[in-house]
């Protein structure tokens, strides 16, 4: 009893509170605003960890907003997978924020910093809410909040590329959420409920009575989440948005925001839809093939990029494909791999974007071909880049291998070795575009040709943490894997 019971709501309250507080703080007590944001993110993280521990002890539990139980009130639900998502979101966003404090000074005007903190906290809050909520309409609202604030942390840097990219992102994600809302309307029409569990209870009957309705709804859900999460042919907004944004925003967007929608699709598929629906229509097949195409084409597109951040953005399209592959394979092992990749990719892609940010901060370079010899002048940054890329390729000792291993194993488990081939081929493609950068950065004979500023310690420490985290995930993956396996059992 006591305060700990309210942690699910308190996490959201704290994040929303700090997001509204930070413009005021920034106006009056400028020095306190950044530490306050960090502190509240940290507090939220501590609560999330507590929730995780609590779930491992008592299992799934719910929190009713305002004390109203499900048919009337909003329900927050915590189980292992949700707690895992929550921790991933909060930990990675805290980590990115530490880096962002320095980088933003360089990339943004000072007077918008307070607003940046607001938007950042809003993105985090909406993602945490998406991980926690057990209500379709809440999911919709949170998706919209996330979309707006995610667009805003792109367009806050007021140059033309950012504005256009975020406009495009906004329109597409508005279309996506429009589709989602239509799908929700269709589900609501036949079930009369918004709560996941209740919908799940009534859907099997509803599917039999109104099959067409549910078919349309499932297609709409796929398109909605696919657009938001940059599933392959719907990824068109991503490269511009992620490449033009300020580096911390890119890290945030590529690392977390697209993942949470993959999680949303997972929830819709495995918590809301009844098994009979998934078995009767090939939803999983669609996801599988779209994600495989994404894995291959994302890598191929990344190969021909000349801009570093753009290359990383295209690589994200490939990597989100792995997460979707895990969801589509419909197998506990593969899904474990997918969720593990979600964490690993959140860390490694954020770290790579941070490295790109450091490079831009210190030298102003964005082109890949100019990076020759940069390893001599920015050793720690480039070592971080190396470890991140190694994890992308799946070299032993990094987290990337473990997730690929589980995905491939799951694909074999259900007898689809073709997806193993796709995973491995994409590893090779990843090697083809990451390796030359590393090799040129460290092994080029010529000296680095551009002026270099000193790297602030505040930017290096997050990179070092990221390196340690990736290697740690590659070496001691067991606890996370066990957690995921236990958590996923609820859904099968």
């Amino acid at each position: 009893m006591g305060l700990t019971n309210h942690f699910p709501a308190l996490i959201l309250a704290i994040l929303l509170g700090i997001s509204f507080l930070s413009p005021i703080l920034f106006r009056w007590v400028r020095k306190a605003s950044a530490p306050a944001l960090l502190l509240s993110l940290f507090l939220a993280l501590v609560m999330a960890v507590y929730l995780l521990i609590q779930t491992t002890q008592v299992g799934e539990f719910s929190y009713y907003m305002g004390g109203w139980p499900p048919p009337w009130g909003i329900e927050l639900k915590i189980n292992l997978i949700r707690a895992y998502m929550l921790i991933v979101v909060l930990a990675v966003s805290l980590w990115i924020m530490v880096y962002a404090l320095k980088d933003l000074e360089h990339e943004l005007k000072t007077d918008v910093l307070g607003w940046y903190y607001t938007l950042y906290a809003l993105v985090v809050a909406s993602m945490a809410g998406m991980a926690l909520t057990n209500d379709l309409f809440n999911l919709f609202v949170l998706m919209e909040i996330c979309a707006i604030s995610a667009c805003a942390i792109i367009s806050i840097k007021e140059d033309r590329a950012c504005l256009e990219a975020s406009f495009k992102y906004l329109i597409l994600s508005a279309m996506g959420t429009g589709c989602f809302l239509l799908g929700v309307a269709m589900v609501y029409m036949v079930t009369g409920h918004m709560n996941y569990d209740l919908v799940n209870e009534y859907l099997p009957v509803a599917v039999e009575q109104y099959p067409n309705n549910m078919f349309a709804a499932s297609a709409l859900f796929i398109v909605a989440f696919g657009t938001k999460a940059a599933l392959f042919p719907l990824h068109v907004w991503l490269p511009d948005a992620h490449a033009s944004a300020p580096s911390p925003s890119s890290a945030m967007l590529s690392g977390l925001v697209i993942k949470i929608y993959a999680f949303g699709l997972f929830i819709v598929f495995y918590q809301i839809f009844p098994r009979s629906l998934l078995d009767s229509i090939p939803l999983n097949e669609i996801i599988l093939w779209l994600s495989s195409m994404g894995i291959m084409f994302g890598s191929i597109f990344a190969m021909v990029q000349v801009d570093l951040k753009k290359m990383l953005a295209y690589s994200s399209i490939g990597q989100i494909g792995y997460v979707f592959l895990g969801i589509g394979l419909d197998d506990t092992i593969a899904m474990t791999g997918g969720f593990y990749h979600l964490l690993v990719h959140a860390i490694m892609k954020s770290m790579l974007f941070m490295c790109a940010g450091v490079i831009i901060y210190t030298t102003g370079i964005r082109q890949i071909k100019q990076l020759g010899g940069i390893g001599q002048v920015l050793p720690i940054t480039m070592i971080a880049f190396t470890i991140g890329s190694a994890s992308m390729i799946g070299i032993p000792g990094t987290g990337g291998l473990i997730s690929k291993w589980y995905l491939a194993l799951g694909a074999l488990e259900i007898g689809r070795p073709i997806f193993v081939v796709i995973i491995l081929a994409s590893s090779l493609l990843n090697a083809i575009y990451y390796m030359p950068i590393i090799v040129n950065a460290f092994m080029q004979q010529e000296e680095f040709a551009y002026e270099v500023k000193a790297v602030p310690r505040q930017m290096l420490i997050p990179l070092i943490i990221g390196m340690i985290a990736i290697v740690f995930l590659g070496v001691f993956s067991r606890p996370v894997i066990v957690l995921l396996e236990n958590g996923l059992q609820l859904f099968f």
Partner: protein
Amino acid sequence: MGTLENQIVRITSRLVAPFIQVYGIYVIIHGHLSPGGGFSGGAIFGASLVLVALSFNLEVGAKQISHDTASILESGGALGFVITGLVAIALGANFLANQSAGFPMGQTGQLFSAGAIFIITFFLGIKVASTIVTLFYNIIEGEDKSGDAH
């Protein structure tokens, strides 16, 4: 520019604005009794402020409520919402709980009834009204700056 149309607009809006504002406040504080509530009322109230600023000019509008005040109010309204929720926790109920947290319920149908709903609606009204004003200022000022940029 004192053209006739301008005068008509100004006088009318000066006349109408207080009534709109009163109506907005009415909608806000009767949110738990009749259709409407924080969002609708706030939008009405904010529209009145925008109307004034549109029909006169920015300085007059700013005299009513300045950009800074609006943005502070905006944050304050939202914060108030969150704090109301937290008060419920402090009172020993769930987040945003109303009756179970011990907010006074009053007589059904009276103005002061429905406990926290009233407070929440009030804060929402502030938030929405000030947001509309802030948005308006943002867009208008952006336009102004663009004049310099060209």
